[in-house]
């Protein structure tokens, strides 16, 4: 049984105040110029309640660039290593879409299936997710085709559903959610009587992910991958906006006295990703790299981790400079 409260518009303001006083960083969707970005939220008015951010909220737990190691070149031939901590600030991810919250599981399985990645784990442990049910979706959305829905509670600590009369119903789903309510008790009022919520957005299912997985088993050599990717630039934009893409690069940055080892987002769509030192490239063609993207998310992920590597947010389709639409391509692949 989940705890349910109402959170009024003024309650949101007092919640944000309470979080600031408690030293919590609050990130959420915010309109900056023409884009929605995941940025610091200081006032309730700054929150973009509808629409998808361009880049996902993934950076909260898996930053674009982060330091894994520091070292100093000491006199003579010696090197001194300095371990680093992620310095994960207690963070509330406020007002994100449910697909963003759900995506953390797809990252978690990779960062923890064998070796445990403390950088990801400490950030995730210090992040409380308050999602808002989607009341608006667009043509690129396909959450209902990948086992989710616009009011999916998976991955959220608190799920907010907008009320017709303003404010939200707040469903508290986890201990982290309870701890957040405890921080700002005055903001959350007991739910009394019938609350009329704004209906969740309608996202018509476009394909069956289980059927797609079965079809992919026999489609590796299909011409469909070449046809779909002939216009692909290999720019990697789809991976960089994606909430579940987890592939990364590791690079050193140093001067003559000291250096650091950094991890940065990467994309299987790029030629250098798999290029061997010998010049041999196992995925030499863009069509092979496009196929890898599809198979990794919709065949290898479910096979290995019993979950899809996609939440159907559609960010990749909106970001693609050559209008490759993932939903349409998957519908085609599932035929």
């Amino acid at each position, binding site marked *: 049984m989940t705890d349910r409260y109402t959170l009024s518009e003024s309650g949101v303001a007092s919640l944000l105040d309470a979080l600031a006083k408690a030293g919590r960083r609050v990130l959420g969707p915010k309109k900056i110029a023409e884009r929605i970005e995941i940025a610091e939220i200081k006032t309730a008015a700054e929150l973009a309640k509808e629409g998808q951010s361009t880049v996902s909220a993934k950076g909260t737990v898996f930053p674009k660039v982060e330091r*894994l*190691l520091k*070292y100093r*070149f000491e006199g003579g*031939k*010696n*090197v001194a*290593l300095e*371990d*680093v901590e992620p310095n994960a600030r207690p963070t509330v991810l406020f007002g994100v879409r449910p697909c963003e919250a759900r995506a953390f599981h797809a990252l978690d399985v*990779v*960062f923890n*299936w*064998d*070796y*445990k*990645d*403390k950088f990801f*784990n*400490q950030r995730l*442990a210090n992040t409380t997710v308050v999602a808002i049910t989607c009341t608006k979706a667009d043509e690129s959305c396909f959450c209902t085709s990948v086992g989710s829905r616009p009011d999916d509670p998976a991955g959220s600590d608190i799920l907010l559903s907008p009320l017709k009369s303003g404010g939200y119903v707040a469903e508290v789903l986890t201990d982290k959610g309870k701890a957040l309510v405890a921080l700002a008790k005055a903001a959350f009022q007991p739910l009394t009587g019938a609350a009329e919520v704004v209906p969740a957005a309608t996202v018509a299912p476009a394909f069956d992910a289980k059927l797609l997985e079965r079809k992919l088993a026999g489609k*590796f050599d299909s011409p469909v991958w070449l046809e779909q990717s002939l216009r692909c630039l290999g720019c990697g934009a789809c991976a960089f906006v994606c909430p579940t893409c*987890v*592939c*990364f*690069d*590791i*690079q*050193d940055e*140093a001067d003559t006295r000291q*250096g650091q*080892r950094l*991890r940065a987002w*990467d994309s*299987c769509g790029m030629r250098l*990703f*798999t*290029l*061997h*030192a*010998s010049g*041999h490239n*196992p*995925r030499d063609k863009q069509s*092979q790299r496009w196929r*890898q993207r599809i*198979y*990794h998310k919709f*065949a*290898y992920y479910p*096979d*290995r981790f019993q979950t899809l590597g996609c939440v159907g947010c559609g960010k990749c389709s909106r970001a693609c400079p050559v209008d490759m639409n993932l939903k349409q391509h998957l519908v085609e692949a599932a035929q």
Partner: protein
Amino acid sequence: MSNDNIYKPYLMRIADITEEAPGVRTFKLEFANPEEGAAFKFSTGQFGLYSAFGEGESTFCIASSPTRKGYIECTFRETGRVTSSLADKDVGDIVGFRGPYGNVFPLEKWKGKSLIFIAGGIALPPLRSVIWNCLDLRDWFKVITVVYGARSVPDLVYKHELDEWGKRTDMKLVTTVDPGGERPGWTGKVGFVPHIVEQLAPPALNTVAIVCGPPIMIKLTLPVLAKLGFGKNEIYTTLENRMKCGLGKCGRCNTGRSYVCKDGPVYTLAELEKLPAEY
């Protein structure tokens, strides 16, 4: 929650450098912290990420045998940013090492069998680890044969060890160089590795073949082994996909459902045929 930094390397001191071939060197590496060295264990077939601090990390196998304690060796060709920086290092310098990672050659399973190792060029290092491991456990195995080819005589690596293996009476070494790669005084064979294996015609009965080399050599050697009667579960290879983490996360070595860094690098031909040919 574990607070270990899985990306933190061991500091290793270069104890010795051997020039193997043009641009190819072997480092003998000792743990800068002897306690870490004493606790370190690996099995043959495993690999690691070697770092030139300031430049980054590169993936190579551990080229020494786990039967030789207290150090590890790696052999690399100067090719990119990291290997060029490593090539500039001297004895006494510090490099980084993360590992051991990946699966292993199943020596227990091979007990009582004959072994034939087939290697080409710079692909001898991963097999050198397992060859020495098997020679150090010599009574576990019947006939041990090594076929090693390179483009030319100067390109052969581990020249001193090839001499030693050639003189041993408890193993058979066949070396070959590509036509035109021979030099005055060359007493080995001249010809491509697959042809040499075909001429040698090792009996497949109760024998395991371990093959490592450039993709073209592997591609042409496998049909020869099939013709000789080697089963797909009796042929092993080790893959060298590009890697960044070695920990089953960065996604680079992902081939089909396999992470080469976790499920590999050692595969039987039967396992390999289940993967897309993206290696």
